[in-house]
């Protein structure tokens, strides 16, 4: 529990009645959030919602890793503007931009107030930039930061890139080869995910969640199911917890493996690039062995999981896991022994620990800077209440750290999957969850392979979603990539970008 009466406290994957959440005057709310972050809490979510009377309500969800507790609070805005938190609390700068865009309230004093996804406000007639309702909003058209000078030039890349990847726009301010500043403008994949969830859960809900970020289908579906199970006071069978954990770590194994291959490819080291491309497929096929889909779709459902792992399948999975890992070891160790690779990885794209903390970065990108954040250990839920995965960290915060960290995590995840498969709890793997309780709030965190996935669900008086907030780990980390590019060669951008490998669609929603 918290001794701070300005917040209500709850655990990960827990719900509480909305009337128990303190409703603070704005100035006190702002002060409470800023002070808490100053004392080391992290901002899991800061978002707005429209109350029944049309007023905008701000909700804050903070993480207190020391006590494995989440803190929630709220405030009502009396007008279409509020004092920005960002000058005192940089972690929330993108959350404030999102609030401004979605609900047409202006964070006054925000140093970098620009659209996030380029869409009209959810409250017709209220626009943070004073745009008319019928005025078309053009994606990517905004006031980019510019460096002026005789020898300064600007490089714009995207939304369509050279490879088969998602769309985004990157604008570099360069002096020769040197990048002085990179600004990242996204929103091209905005599909209206959050808005479509209101009034749910409906028959499309879980599928939209699985498509929030395709390579994190298991992570997002798990976060959603934890939230729904908290709201319906459903305790799922232990076997289902274990199977979800196995699937989540298989997702991490596949993506980390793919990233190591892609990093090798970006520095022209083809053996590892080619082997990892294939071995990533072995892990995806292992996921398909369990649930039929290489991306884990249709596996995680409220109440448990759709598919069980019976005895023969378990033996087959263990055998294939060991073989894939042996192949991977041979492929990846080449990287650490090739001086040509190390010369390209080390000292490139560094993010300092201080910047990482100030931005509130999450996942491997944060752990590579020596910041030991990991939902699985900090806010354990599901199987991670009973089985722990040791956290890995690096200190240098550069491409090498992000690459090597993935290899460390691969080994830990593989050991976890093996252990879980060998000791699967008996019992059922799925039950039917009850209806959602009305007027409640649930917070659900999952450590996806990119980092902290946060879902916050608020129900109305009928037990339907009044608001559903999704915070993909990429939302916390894109600015980390922008900082990593400062003073780097522009030719190192692909390498730096791949070392973060953030989600565009998870950010754009």
């Amino acid at each position, binding site marked *: 529990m918290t001794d701070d009466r300005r917040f209500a406290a709850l655990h990960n994957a827990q719900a509480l009645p909305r009337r128990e959440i303190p409703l603070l005057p704005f100035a006190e709310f702002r002060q409470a959030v800023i002070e808490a972050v100053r004392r080391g809490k992290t901002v899991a979510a800061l978002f707005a919602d429209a109350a029944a009377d049309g007023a905008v309500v701000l909700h804050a969800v903070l993480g207190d890793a020391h006590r494995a507790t989440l803190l929630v609070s709220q405030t009502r805005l009396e007008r279409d503007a509020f004092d920005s938190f960002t000058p005192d609390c940089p972690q929330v700068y993108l959350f404030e931009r999102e609030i401004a865009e979605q609900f047409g309230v202006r964070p006054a004093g925000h140093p970098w107030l620009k659209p996030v996804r380029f869409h009209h406000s959810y409250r017709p007639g209220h626009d943070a930039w004073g745009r008319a309702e019928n005025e078309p909003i053009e994606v990517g058209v905004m006031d980019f930061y510019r460096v002026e000078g005789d020898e300064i030039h600007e490089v714009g890349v995207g*939304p369509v890139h050279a*490879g088969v990847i998602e769309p985004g726009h990157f604008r570099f301010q360069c002096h020769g080869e040197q990048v002085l500043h990179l600004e990242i403008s996204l929103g*091209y*994949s905005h599909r209206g995910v959050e808005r479509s969830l209101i009034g749910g859960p409906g028959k499309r809900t879980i*599928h939209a969640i699985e498509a929030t970020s395709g390579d994190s289908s298991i992570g997002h579906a798990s976060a959603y199911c934890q939230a729904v199970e908290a709201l319906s006071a459903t305790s799922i069978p232990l076997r289902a917890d274990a199977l979800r954990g196995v699937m989540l770590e298989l997702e991490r194994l596949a993506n980390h493996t793919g990233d190591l291959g892609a990093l090798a490819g970006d520095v022209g080291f083809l053996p590892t690039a080619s082997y990892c491309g294939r071995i990533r497929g072995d892990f995806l096929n292992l996921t398909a062995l369990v649930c039929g889909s290489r*991306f884990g779709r249709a596996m995680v459902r409220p109440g448990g999981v*759709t598919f069980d792992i019976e005895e023969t399948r378990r033996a087959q999975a263990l055998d294939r896991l060991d073989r894939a890992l042996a192949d991977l070891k041979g492929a990846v160790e*080449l990287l650490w022994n090739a001086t040509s690779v190390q010369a390209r990885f080390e000292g490139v794209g560094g993010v300092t620990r201080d910047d990482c903390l100030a931005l509130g970065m999450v996942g491997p990108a944060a752990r590579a800077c020596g910041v030991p954040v990991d939902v699985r250990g900090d806010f354990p839920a599901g199987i991670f209440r009973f089985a722990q995965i040791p956290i890995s960290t690096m200190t240098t915060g550069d491409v090498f750290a992000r690459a090597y960290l993935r290899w460390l995590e691969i080994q830990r995840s593989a050991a976890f999957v093996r252990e879980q498969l060998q000791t699967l709890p008996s019992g059922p793997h799925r039950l039917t969850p009850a209806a959602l309780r009305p007027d409640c709030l649930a917070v659900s965190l999952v450590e996806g392979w990119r980092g902290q996935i946060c879902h916050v669900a608020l129900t109305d008086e009928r037990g339907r979603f009044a608001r559903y907030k999704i915070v993909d780990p990429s939302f916390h980390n894109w600015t980390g990539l922008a900082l990593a590019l400062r003073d780097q060669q522009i030719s190192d951008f692909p390498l730096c970008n791949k070392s973060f490998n953030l989600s565009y669609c998870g950010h754009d929603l």
Partner: protein
Amino acid sequence: MWQVIRARWRQGQRTISYPAGPAPALSDRFRGLPIVEASKCPAGCRECAEACPTEAISTDGSRFQLDLGRCLFCTECSEACPEGAIQYSSDYRLATRTREDLLYDGQTLKLAEALDQQTRRLFGRSLKLRQVCAGGSGASEADLNVLSTVVFDLARFGIQFVASPRHADGLVVTGPVSENMRAALLEVYEAIPAPKLVIAVGAEAISGGVFRGHDETHDGAASLLPLDLFIPGWPPHPLTILDGFLRLLGRLDFSISSE
């Protein structure tokens, strides 16, 4: 150096022998083409249609139709059916040439036919494709990338993904076409020299999928571009995509290629 050579030797030869040999084994839980025994349907039963998240099924208990362009290949309909009349088969072949061909009766699917002789003379041995992700979730894109790995080795068929639309013979679209990607998608299409092909990969690119009807999307590429090939799936398995490409180029249809 020796370590690199040893690793190479250990990793071995991994490219699949398909299409000359058999396709690689898929998971026994893989959900390919669904097979529907409409004769089992009780009169007036609409359980599957009501369970379907994307309104892909229409049935009145006797006449059954599944729109594979909307199908998410999930388990909702097969779980909802009281008679067990819907079963997924392991058949990964799903690509068609027209949108109408995706309206499937549950028994026979008219798979894609090859391009006409003249177009095949142009593209049959060398097809360069520009891919545009128009609001996709990254899953279809990932399994398109898989085609370029050593396992599928797309380049052995003369098919390659290229960076510049000027170098491309065709466009591969993924995603429901978000409003914010509409202009970029059309620009890429315009930049590809004619004659050109357009291929929609995945439920979202074909129909909008789970995002169909959203104000923020255009329900797939069909309303904006003329499409030559539809590859269903959510996302389609790499084999499904490869099968579609090869079918289009007439490289699987031996009766045509021996003419």
